[in-house]
């Protein structure tokens, strides 16, 4: 079955006065139809820039400088701004951590939702209204009609995010890129939204890229996982395999430091040091200075390789003993 999206060796750089920031510099992954792909990594690892690159929202001084973004086989990196605008919000939609990136504070919710429908589709106003109702119903907003007459500031944070997700759903996109949409929400509200999203992906065949720093969120939500470090995907594969038997030392360390993976009260396993600055990355593997398996060979460039079927890692001394076991 053909993939909805295939990203191959994406490179997005920012040409700043202080130097070239290689925010994304070797990102590859595949998202199947109706699948949820979790894109995880710590802050600054390049997750948001990856999402923006796919949907064509990278602004100067940033630019996609290499790689392919194949959406149903078509390379989005080669499309014109006008062609991208046609796709955006229509066949590909994005949800942001801050729903006010999507919502217009001075428009009533019904006005902006109906306008969004009419911008891409030729339907009557009443049909547009019905579509809005359906979309709001899908994200668990029960009596949408009265809700629709409110302004965004009259909603709670959780409700605003639901409306933003409903707007993303209006055109039944084939791909949704969700950038930490539940990070700022309380855990019971996050749970409600994750439940709705899960149903959506299962029922509509929409593919999802779920960006988060929280491994626990994608553990229960995603089919596949790609782990980023310093602008590169360092490991990917089916979610249970990556979480149960991580191959890359960074993934290994990250999972090990989650409190529930440790005995209560005992020191947490920790990764020493901190993420290097993207402006002065060490040569070779960027994880080198923090890695307990590093050898002098690791200072030469390291490729992302398929080490076992369906699983890639960017490491020359991966944890294979556990995978084989």
């Amino acid at each position, binding site marked *: 079955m053909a993939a909805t999206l295939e990203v191959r060796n994406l490179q997005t750089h920012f040409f700043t006065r202080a130097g070239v920031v290689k925010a994304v510099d070797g990102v590859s992954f595949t998202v199947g139809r109706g699948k949820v792909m979790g894109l995880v990594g*710590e*802050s600054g690892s390049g997750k948001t820039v990856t999402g923006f690159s796919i949907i064509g929202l990278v602004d100067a001084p940033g630019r996609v400088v290499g790689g392919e973004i194949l959406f149903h086989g078509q390379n989005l990196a080669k499309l014109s701004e006008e062609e991208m605008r046609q796709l955006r919000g229509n066949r590909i939609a994005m949800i942001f951590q801050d729903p006010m990136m999507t919502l217009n504070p001075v428009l009533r919710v019904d006005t902006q939702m109906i306008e969004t429908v009419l911008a891409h589709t030729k339907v009557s106003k009443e049909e547009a209204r019905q579509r809005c109702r359906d979309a709001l119903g899908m994200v668990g907003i029960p009596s949408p009609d009265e809700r629709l007459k409110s302004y965004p500031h009259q909603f*709670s944070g*959780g*409700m605003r995010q639901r409306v933003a997700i409903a707007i993303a759903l209006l055109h039944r996109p084939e791909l949704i890129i969700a950038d930490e949409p539940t990070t700022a929400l*309380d*855990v*019971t*509200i*996050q*749970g*409600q939204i*994750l*439940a709705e999203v*899960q149903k959506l992906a299962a029922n509509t065949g929409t593919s999802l890229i779920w960006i988060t*720093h*929280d*491994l*626990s*969120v994608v*553990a*229960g*939500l995603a*089919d596949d996982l790609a782990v980023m470090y310093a602008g590169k995907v360092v490991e990917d594969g089916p*979610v*249970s395999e990556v*979480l149960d038997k991580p191959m890359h030392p960074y993934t290994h*360390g*990250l*999972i090990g*430091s*989650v*409190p*529930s*993976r*440790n*005995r*209560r*009260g*005992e*020191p*947490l*396993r*920790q*990764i*020493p040091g*901190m*993420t290097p600055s993207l402006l002065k990355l060490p040569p070779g593997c960027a994880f080198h200075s923090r890695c307990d398996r590093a050898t002098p060979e690791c200072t030469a460039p390291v490729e992302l390789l398929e080490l076992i079927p369906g699983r890639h890692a960017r490491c020359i001394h991966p944890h294979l003993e556990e995978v084989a076991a």
Partner: protein
Amino acid sequence: MSATTMEHTRRPGTEADQPIIELVGISKRFEKKLDFIGKLAQRLGAPVREEIVHAVDNVNLTIRHGEVVGLVGESGCGKSTLGRVVAGIMPPSDGQVLWRGRDIASLHGAEAKEAKLRAQMIFQDPMSSLNPRMKVQDIVGEAPQVHGMTTRSGFNDYVDEQLRRAGLDPALKKRYPHQFSGGQRQRIGIARALAVQPEFLVCDESVAALDVSIQAQILNLFMRLRSELNLTYLFISHDLSVVEHLSDRVVIMYLGRVVEQAPSEEIFARANHPYTVSLLSAVPRIEARKRAFTTVQGEIPSPLNPPPGCHFHPRCPHAMERCRVEVPALKEIAPGHLSACHLNG
């Protein structure tokens, strides 16, 4: 699988069993002042009033020497307010804070000053609590010097020791906060708090803004300091897995009230209160695989106008008529396990 490393500093029959801090009937109310339009409307006879937030509502809590108590709840439930009252930086509207059995409101002069130093607070965002124009050495060393814990000649050594203990290189002490990463800034905040030799730390979401790998480093530091310095903690966090890992005892708040408290293992194995149960089931777990997320319905009500009776009743799957009118009392349902729910009779 008991928390051996966490408890080895506690010797039975010593001061370990003594309360270090007791909260008795603590409430804190904030008045939401009317804006200009509101005041005008009121003058013209419109029925608008200043609204009152019951941020903390009649909380009783005892923390014993050497304990780590985790305080959990969703945003706006009053955790930070309670933490500030405990740390002595915000007076309660009602109730008493007893420090080793003595009401801190009754202390004066040197005693009051000393009581203030005994409890220190560490915040979520170290940047907003560190003076950006002060060098690290002054951020850490100023208060101890003022309070005579170090002399002018001993200042450098004293600051170096504080920084080293918090895992910072003393060679960096002439730098300013913005020259450090988030994790290092949190270490500066910890060094500053410990420099005045407190016995009690209130950590308010102190690792919430940090990446997982850095969070683990700081949590390990908190645990090491606890045994080295015999500290007692009130550890406030919305992250249940962090609280589970660290705490001896857990306190759950909902809309200003304590709804449940119990030893850590007990609460995670046998949660009693329906709110605690739904909170625990909503927490994403790294062990979960493609699971169906099921959660509590509805939103957290406004603290300006909390539901009568049990605050949780509009969202509770077990709510009965009684829950809508009568506030459930916090009652002991098993040794050391308290819950405020009418289902317990």
